[in-house]
């Protein structure tokens, strides 16, 4: 099925190779987001611990 989308031809359903590339990119993006979120929470906890130590007399 062909559709018109903002003046460009959109092929639907997308060819198998396109779906494979997009799904592997989405997988990579997901893995990287999880790594980033892990790093963020590590830094957040570290920040809290250091701030706590600073407040100690």
């Amino acid at each position, binding site marked *: 099925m062909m559709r018109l989308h903002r003046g460009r031809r959109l092929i639907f359903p997308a060819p198998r190779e396109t779906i494979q590339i997009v799904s592997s990119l989405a997988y990579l*993006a997901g893995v*990287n*987001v999880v790594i980033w*979120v892990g790093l*963020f929470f590590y*830094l957040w906890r570290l*920040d809290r611990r250091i701030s706590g130590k*600073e407040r100690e007399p």
Partner: protein
Amino acid sequence: MKATKALLGLYMAVFTGAAFLWPKPAQGFIGESSRIVFFHVPCAWVASLAFLVAAGYSLAYLVRRNARHDDTAAAAVRLGLLFAVLALVTGSLFARIMWGSYWNWDPRESSFLLLIFLYAAYLFLRNAIEDRERRATVAAAYALFAAVLMPFLVFVAPRITQSLHPQTVINPQGKILMDTPTRAVFFGGLIGFSALFFWMLELDTKAARLRREGAVSARRVS
């Protein structure tokens, strides 16, 4: 400040997703390899920024003799080295895909490796001197010397020789050759990585100060 840090977490998660899913891969590169630019360039940029920050705080230490400035300079070098190694690793992954080998002795690869050695020597130098004040003074002088070489290794040496490296943002045409999504993610990444660096710098500096003050009070007790 907490809200800013939480926002940074969200911002970087969105940036990471966008880097993989929003811009189309650049023309002239194999597959999706061009996407590495969104991580590789910010790492190299933050490394350069960190070494400049280290130079600034080293100069401040030599003028004011405040130990906190020395803590910040050392933390900036440590983080700069971390980001420089990440830039080198991401660059090597790109080189493997585009040029068939992880290491090609390209002028940009070699000059960046020299930069890493230059600043690794800073840490060796610090560890070699016991006396705190002498260590801080010598390290500050060395950081200033390294900062003079740094722009040559990052910006000049790779540009005066033939290189396999793709054109950089600062190119002979004087134009940013990117489409809008690529430009948005690219500069968004530079901002996000810079903010991340300053947060890590704050943490490392505070930790170093706590260690130093802990060591001083322990010496007083004994």
